[in-house]
């Protein structure tokens, strides 16, 4: 079982890689809409990448209203 920190770190690595943002610029409490400069379609892309990476199903209503990486990680942890 991954820890919350491990899950958060994997999310940050994946987000940095796919949205071409330096990993060092991303922190767990960042607003990913603002930090990655993404819109809702790109947020859905991020959601799909996370589902594929972690092998989980994450209904989008569970992440609606979530905008920081750490809370996103807790939602994923609950599905692992």
């Amino acid at each position, binding site marked *: 079982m991954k820890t919350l920190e491990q899950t958060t770190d994997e999310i940050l690595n994946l987000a940095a890689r796919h949205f071409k943002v330096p990993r060092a610029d991303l922190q767990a409490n960042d607003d990913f*809409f603002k930090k990655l400069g*993404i*819109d*809702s*379609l790109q*947020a*859905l*892309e991020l*959601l*799909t*990448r996370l*589902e*594929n990476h972690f092998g989980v*199903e994450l*209904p*989008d*209503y569970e*992440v*609606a209203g979530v905008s920081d990486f750490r809370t996103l990680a807790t939602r994923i942890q609950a599905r692992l």
Partner: protein
Amino acid sequence: MNDYMGKSLSWRVADGIVELALDRAPANEIGLAMLDDLERFAGALPELESKASALILYSKQSAGFSAGADLRELYTLVQQTDTASAAKGVREFLERIHAVLNRLDMASLTTIAAVHGVCFGGGFELALTCDLIIADKMARFCFPELRLGLIPGFGGIPRLKRDIGNGVVRDLLLTGRSINATKALAVGLASQVAAEGEALRVARATAEQVTKFDRPTAVVAKHFIKPLPAEELRREIDIFCKLFVQPAVMQGLRRFVEDTGAHPYLP
């Protein structure tokens, strides 16, 4: 006509395979321009059916297959007229799109949707007319209509119900959530999943395979296993039109259109 280049889509025929490419920025929203082009395609189908065995439907837009009905166009049209006239216009649009999608559904070709990215609402309904759905690993399927106080109006529920279990249909319809390609494969919505960026290539390989079989036999097999749910499709139009005049719909449309933030496609 063999090849065609319209405002929102194009098609070409080669080696017994028709490729219909949706291509209207930003995400192949289905409004009047797309409907006009789809009707043109439906009109060309008899000739195409005599020359080809398979049809591949795909998108050239990076955002995905299609984000669904053009809600901004719909909102603008509704704003310009009274409720009764708007409702009449919506019914006319639905009658036209149903005629096109029913024709696609029943085409004497083996039809394949190669889906990547968003496949939402009316776009999902367009994909559901196809005999096979091949989903890119990054595809996402959704019926978000209840967020607007509506039900899917382009034949989505009857067609999805034809393909998969009612429990999953209710989950998608009543929660408005989106599902990924893995889930789509697991529930039987998609029949194949392709790696990222590979759905069209996989669809082409599949289309080549179906061209090997006797065409009349393939058509008989298709129509045997995939009947048109005609009565439910008619009922869907009536239910949609009844719901459309409810105040919640205008509020939902306004919320979507006026959303200048990052959230219009999230629940």
